[in-house]
C-alpha cells in the first residue's frame, strides 16, 4: 500500500460517497466510543457533520466549476450499478442540509445532555448521525431504489430519535409517524416498482430517457400517482400532515430542530427531483395535470397551516403548523414550474431550513433553560434571555418576509414567478399568509417583550444567576440568525445557484 498523491486525488474524486460514508461510520462509532466519556459522542457527531459539510461544499464548488459529477459505486456502470449524481440542483440542497446539520449538532450538546437519559446518549448520537447520513443519501443518490432505501434509513432512525423525547407522548407520536411513514414509504416503493416493471431500470437518468415513450401507459401514470401520494404524506402536505405536529412537539428539542430544518424539506426536494428529473416537465405539465392539483393543494396548505398556527398555544406546535404552511410555499413554486418560481421554491428550501431550524433552536434553548413551551408562560423572557429572543425576533421577521431577510427573497421570487406565469391570484394567498404569519409570531414577540413577567418565569431562578442559555447554544442560534440577514442582504450567491438549479430542473 502506498499513499501517493494519486490516493488523495482519487479520494477527492470519491467525495460523493464520502459525504455519506463519514456520517455513517461515525454513526457506528458513536455507541462504541461514547463508552469512554458521554460527551465523546457529541465531539464525534460534530466532527463528522463538519467534515460532511466541508465535503458537500467542495462538491458544490466542483459542480459550479465543472458541471454535474457522477460517481459509480464499486465502479459498476449505471444502470446496473448504483450511481451518485451531484448536479447544481442537489449539490445545493446537499450543502444546505450538511450545513444545517452541522450547526444544529454544534448547538445540541447541552440540550442533548439534559433531555436524553445518559445511558441512551450513545444511541442517540448513533441514530442522529444515521438520520443525517440517510438524508444526505436521499439527496445525492441517482438511483431511485437506493433513494427508497435512504428514505427508510432516515425514517427508521427518525422514529428512534422522536421516541427519545422526554414526554411519554413522544412514543405515541413516534408510533403514529412510524405507521404513516411506513405507509408513505410503501406507496413510494410501489411506485418505484411499477416504474421498474415498465422500464426495467432504476437509474434516474435512465428512467428519464426511457419514460417519455411510454408516458401514456397506465403503469407509468399509476406509478406516478403512487409516488406522489407517498411523498405528499412524507412531506406533510395538508391534509396528510397529521403526524407532523405531534412529532415536532414531543421529540427532543434538537431533533425537532433537525427534522424541521431538513426532513420535510428533503422530501419536498425528492418531489421536485422525481417530478422534473425522473419524469420531465412535459409530463407533469401536459400529460397529467399534476401541477394544477399541486397548486391548489399548496394554497390550501399555506392558508390552513397559517390559520391553524394562529390558534396554537404551544410554541413548538405553532412552529410545526407554520412549517406545514411553509412547505406549501416550496410545493407551490414547484407547481408553478417557471424558472423564477422554481428559484423561489429552491431558495426557500435553504431559507426555511435556516429560519425554522433557528426558531426551533431558540425554543430548544428556552426549554433547556426554563422548560417553557407555552406561549403565555413566555411573558418577560425578553429581559431574561435577550440574545436568544433577539434571534427569535429576527427569525420571526424573516418568516413574515421583512425586506432583506431571507424570507423576503423566497417570497419575492415566488410572487414574481406567480405573476410572471399569469397566476397573479396566487399573490393574495402569499400575502394573506404573510399577515397571518405576522399575527401568530407577533403574539409571541408581544408576550416576550411587552408583557409583565409570567408567574412561571419568576419562580425559576435566582436573579443574580445568568438566565441566558449556554454559550454554545446562543452563539449557534445567533449565527443562524445572522445568516438569515446575511443571505437576505447578499442573496446573489444562493440565488445564482438556485437559478441554475431551477434551469437545470426545467431542462432549459
Amino acid at each position, binding site marked *: 500500500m502506498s499513499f501517493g498523491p494519486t490516493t488523495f486525488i482519487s479520494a477527492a474524486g470519491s467525495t460523493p460517497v464520502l459525504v455519506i460514508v463519514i456520517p455513517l461510520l461515525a454513526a457506528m462509532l458513536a455507541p462504541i466510543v461514547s463508552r469512554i466519556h458521554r460527551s465523546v459522542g457529541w465531539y464525534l457527531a460534530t466532527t463528522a457533520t463538519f467534515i460532511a459539510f466541508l465535503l458537500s461544499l467542495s462538491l458544490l464548488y466542483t459542480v459550479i466549476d465543472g458541471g454535474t459529477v457522477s460517481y459509480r459505486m464499486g465502479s459498476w456502470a449505471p444502470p446496473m450499478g448504483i450511481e451518485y449524481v451531484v448536479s447544481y440542483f442537489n449539490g445545493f440542497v446537499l450543502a444546505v442540509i450538511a450545513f444545517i446539520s452541522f450547526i444544529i449538532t454544534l448547538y445540541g450538546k447541552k440540550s442533548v445532555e439534559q433531555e436524553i437519559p445518559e445511558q441512551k446518549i450513545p444511541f442517540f448520537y448513533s441514530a442522529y448521525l444515521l438520520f443525517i447520513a440517510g438524508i444526505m443519501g436521499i439527496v445525492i443518490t441517482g438511483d431511485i431504489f437506493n433513494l427508497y432505501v435512504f428514505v427508510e434509513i432516515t425514517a427508521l432512525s427518525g422514529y428512534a430519535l422522536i421516541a427519545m423525547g422526554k414526554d411519554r407522548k413522544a412514543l405515541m407520536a413516534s408510533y*403514529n409517524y412510524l*405507521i*404513516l411513514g411506513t*405507509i*408513505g414509504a410503501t*406507496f413510494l416503493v410501489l411506485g418505484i416498482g411499477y416504474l421498474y416493471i415498465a422500464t426495467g431500470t432504476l437509474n434516474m437518468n435512465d428512467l428519464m430517457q426511457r419514460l417519455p415513450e411510454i408516458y401514456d401507459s*397506465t403503469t407509468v*401514470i*399509476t406509478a*406516478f*400517482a*403512487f409516488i*406522489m*401520494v407517498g411523498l*405528499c*404524506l412524507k412531506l406533510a402536505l395538508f*391534509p*396528510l400532515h*397529521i*403526524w407532523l405536529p*405531534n412529532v415536532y412537539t414531543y421529540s427532543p428539542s434538537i431533533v425537532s430542530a433537525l427534522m424541521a430544518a431538513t426532513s420535510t424539506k428533503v422530501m419536498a426536494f425528492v418531489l421536485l427531483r422525481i417530478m422534473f428529473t425522473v419524469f420531465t416537465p412535459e409530463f407533469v405539465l401536459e400529460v*397529467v*395535470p*399534476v401541477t394544477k*392539483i399541486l397548486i391548489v393543494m399548496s394554497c390550501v396548505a399555506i392558508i390552513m397551516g397559517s*390559520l391553524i398556527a*394562529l*390558534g396554537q398555544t404551544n410554541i413548538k406546535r405553532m412552529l410545526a403548523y407554520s412549517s406545514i404552511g411553509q412547505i406549501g410555499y416550496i410545493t407551490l413554486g414547484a407547481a408553478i414550474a417557471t424558472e423564477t418560481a422554481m428559484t423561489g421554491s429552491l431558495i426557500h428550501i435553504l431559507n426555511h431550513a435556516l429560519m425554522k431550524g433557528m426558531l426551533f433552536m431558540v425554543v430548544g434553548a428556552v426549554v433547556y433553560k426554563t422548560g417553557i413551551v407555552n406561549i403565555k408562560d413566555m411573558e418577560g423572557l425578553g429581559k431574561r434571555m435577550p440574545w436568544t429572543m433577539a434571534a427569535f425576533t429576527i427569525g420571526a421577521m424573516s418568516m*413574515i*418576509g*421583512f*425586506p*432583506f431577510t431571507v424570507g423576503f*427573497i423566497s417570497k*419575492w421570487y415566488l*410572487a*414574481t414567478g406567480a*405573476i*410572471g406565469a399569469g397566476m*397573479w391570484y396566487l*399573490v*393574495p394567498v402569499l*400575502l394573506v399568509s*404573510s*399577515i397571518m404569519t*405576522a*399575527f401568530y409570531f*407577533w403574539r409571541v414577540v*408581544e408576550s416576550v*417583550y*411587552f*408583557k409583565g413577567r409570567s408567574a412561571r418565569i419568576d419562580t425559576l431562578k435566582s436573579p443574580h444567576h445568568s438566565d441566558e442559555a449556554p454559550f454554545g447554544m446562543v452563539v449557534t442560534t445567533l449565527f443562524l440568525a445572522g445568516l438569515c440577514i446575511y443571505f437576505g442582504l447578499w*442573496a*446573489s450567491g444562493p*440565488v445564482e445557484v438556485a437559478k441554475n438549479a431551477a434551469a437545470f430542473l426545467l431542462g432549459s
Partner: protein
Amino acid sequence: MTEWAHPGVIMLVGTILIPFLKGGVKKSYMLLIPLVALAATYYSTPGTTVWVYDYMGLKLVFGRIDALSIGFSYAFCIMTFIGGVYSLHLDDDRQHIAGLLYAGSSLGAVFAGDLLTLFLFWEIMAFSSAYLIFAGKFKNSTKAGTRYLLVHIAGGLFLLAGILMYYAESHSLAFNGFTPDGPGGATAFYLILIGFLLNAAVPPLSAWLSDAYPEGSITGSVFLATFTTKTAIYVLIRGFSGAEILIVLGIIMTLYGILYTIIENDCRRLLSYHIISQVGYMVAAVGIGTEFAINGSAAHAFTNIFFKGLLFMGAGAVIYVTGTRKLTELGGIYKKMPKTVVLFMVGAFAISGFPLFSGFVSKAMIIGAAHYEHMAWTTMLLSLTAVGTFLSVGLKLAYHLFFRPNEHNELAMHKAKEPPTNMLVAMAMAAVICILFGVYPKALFSMLPFPTDYNPYTMDHVTASLLMLGFTALAFYIVLGKLNPHKTLSIDTDWFYRKTGGMFIYFINSPLLKIGDLIAGVVFTAVPNGLIYFMRNPLGAFKIGADTFSLAISGSDRRVKLRSRIKREKAIYPGDNIKHWPIGSTVVWVAVFLLACLLIYFV
C-alpha cells in the same frame, strides 16, 4: 459612488453606539447625530443619483438627491434634533434608538430611488415607530401598538403586492410617477396607492393614527407626529402627483379630522385628528398637481412638521407634569406653566394660519393653488377646514387645556409646573422656526422642489385671513357653553378591527374551531371509523344496514322480529369500540388522495 453620506444611514448606523455611552457624552452624541445628518444633507448635490447597488440583479438606489428629497431631509433632520433635545431628560436607550431608527428610515425612504429600497425603509419605519407606541406605557399602549403594527404590516403588504405587480410587468423597480395604465395596470396603481394612503392616514385607513399616537410615549409622539404621514406625502408627491382622486380624498380628510377634533376629549387624540386634517391639505395639493400646488404641499409638510411637533411637545409637557391627558381634568393651569402656554400658543397660531406664522404661508399656497385652478368647491371646503382648525386648536384646545376655570382639576392643578428645561428649549426652537417661516417665507421657499416667488402678504389675503380668524373667534365665544368636553371617546373606523378584531379572535377560537373540530371529527374520525367499521365485515354491516332500513319502513307486526335480528347481528359483528387514531383517518385520506389522483390522471 460619489462622496456622499446618506443622512438616513448616518442615523441608522449612529444608533449602534448609544447603548455603550454614558451620561453627558451620550447626550451630546445623540444630539450630534441629527446635526451630522443635517450637514450631510447640506453637502448633497441636487440632481445626482448615488449609492446605487445591485441586489439579485435588481437596481437599488439609496440616494436619489434632488430639491424635493433635500427639502424633506432638512426638515426631518432639524425635527430629529429638536425631538432629541425634547427627550434629553429621558434615560431609556431603547426609545432613543427607536426614535433615531424611525427618523433614519424615514430619511431612507425619502432618498430611496427605487421601490424595493422604499419598501425596506417603509417597514423599518413601521417597526421602529411601533416601539415608540409600546414605550408609552399607558393603559392601552401595548394593545394600540399591536394594532398599529399589524395595520402597518397589512399596508406594507398592499404596497408590496403593488410593487410585485409593477415589477413583474416592467422588470424595473424605478420609483417615478405611476399611472393606471402603466406597468402592472390599474391593479398595481391602486395597490401602491393604498399602501401610501394608509401611511398618509386617509380615511377610512386613518384610524390607526388617532388610535395609536395618543398612546405613544410623550417624547416618542413628537417623532410620530413628524415622520410617517410626511413621508407618505413625500412618496405621494413622487408617485401620484396629479391623481385627481387625491383631491377628493384630501378634502374628506380635512373635514373628517376637524369634525372629530371638535368632539374629542383626549388632548393628544385631538391633535392626532389634526394631523389627519392637516395632511388632508397636502394630499389635496398633491392631487391638484401643479408646480405651485406641489410646492404648497411640500411647504405645508415642512411647516406642519414644526408646528405639529410643537403642539405635541406642548401637550406632552402638560401630560408629563400633570399625568392626565383628558380635557375634562385639565384647565386653568396657565398660571403654573406660562412659558409652556406661550410656546404652545405659537404653535396654535401657526396651525391656525395667523399672519406672520408659518401656517399662514403654506396654507395660503395650497388654497391659492386650488384657487388658481378654478376649483370652487376645493377652495371653499379647504377654507372651511381652516376655520375649523382655528376653532379647535387655537381656541377650543388652548382654552380647555390652559385657561378654562375648572373645579375638577385640583390634582392636575397641584401637580402642574413648568416642564424640564430641555423640553422648553426644544419647544422654543420649534417656535422660532414657526415664526421664522412666517416672517421670512423665503427660508421656507428655499426648501421647496420648485422655485417660487410667491408673496403671501398681499393686503386682501391678510385681511381675508384676519376676517376668518376674527369671526371664528366671535362664533366660538357665542357657543362656548356648548363646547365643554365630555368624558367620552369617539369611535372611528378602528371600530371595525377593534371590535371585529376581538370578534375575529373569538371567531377563530370559538365557532371556527368548533366547526373545524366538527369537520375534523367527521372527516378524520367519523368517516374513516365508519369505513373501518364497515370493512370489518362488509356483508354483516350491509345486513345490519338493510335491516335497520326495513325496520324504519315496515309495519309494527315485523318490528319485533327485525329488532331481535338486528340485535343478534350486532352481537356477532366483529370488532370492539373504535378508538380515535389519527392513523386511520390519514390512511383514509391517503386512499382518497390516491383515488383522486388516479381519477384525475386517467379521466
